[in-house]
């Protein structure tokens, strides 16, 4: 297949894919459309309130803490033990990201699920029919 034919075939493929995709978009059910509408209104409400979540200040807080720590070390008022600085910085970065905070929340949730499942298994009588 020469280059021109290949491009034509690629274009035809993309066109067919786009057509199917558009059909699937047009076929979205009412419930999904309603949820999308609610999500859009929530986003627009954010525009009106101009609200900022506390997690937005985490990076700034991290920089401030780092600056204070650097100042303390520089002035010699604190003896810092030998630390693997890149590793500590990397851990701090991971801990301070919003995603990691969400992940920690998730971990609690999974622990709870696990505990709950065990409780249910323990509490259920052997014959729980009826």
């Amino acid at each position: 297949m020469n280059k021109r034919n290949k491009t034509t075939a690629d274009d035809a493929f993309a066109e067919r894919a786009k057509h199917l995709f558009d059909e699937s978009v047009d076929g979205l059910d009412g419930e999904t459309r309603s949820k999308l509408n609610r999500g859009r209104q929530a986003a627009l409400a954010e525009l009106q309130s101009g609200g900022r979540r506390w997690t937005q200040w985490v990076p700034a807080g991290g920089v401030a803490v780092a600056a204070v720590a650097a100042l303390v070390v520089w002035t010699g008022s604190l003896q810092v033990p030998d630390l693997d600085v890149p590793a500590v910085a990397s851990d701090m970065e991971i801990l301070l990201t919003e995603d990691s905070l969400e992940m920690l929340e998730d971990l609690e949730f999974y622990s709870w699920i696990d505990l709950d499942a065990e409780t249910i298994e323990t509490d259920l009588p052997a014959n729980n029919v009826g």
Partner: protein
Amino acid sequence: MNAYTASFAVSCFASDRKGVDTLQREARLNGFFADIEKRALRIAEISIRDRDEALDLGQDAMIKLARNYADRPDDEWTPLFYRILQNRIRDWQRRQVVRNRVMVFFGRGKEDEDYDPIAAAPDPAGRTPDEELQSHEAMESLEEAIGALPGRQREAFMLRTFEGLNVAGTANAMGCSEGSVKTHYSRAIHSLRETLGEHWQ
């Protein structure tokens, strides 16, 4: 009119002007979201194979755009929105990997395998059942093939083909060079055509 009154009038006018600007911007943003939200949902859904999660990611992306980038020129919104959405999708996928690892640690298998494409299928749209079935099956095959692509190829293909972004806009949304977009897109098309075969078209 004394100086104080004049100053007050100017202040009121400026305040009114600001309110009008905010309303106009909100109306434009509303139109932008209304135009893009359904395609964005499907793009996210194809990436992560979960409609509810895709709805959440889409809403997050809209909120972040409204919060941080509403002041930017309107023509920058589309690539910015998709850049946010793609980052959200990548974060979600990373978290899924960790989550699955934790699930295995607690002795549970993957719980995400209950995705039911039939239950998630869209409502009929005026086609005969045969036509609808054919389209549905073709789209299912396409979604599976897209899902099997490497992440960057998947992004390039969907942004170029489904959203209709040009090379520059796609590069902006993906945070890479235009050359990379062309390479990813070309490889994606080649791979998809090979996977789906000639009969698919």
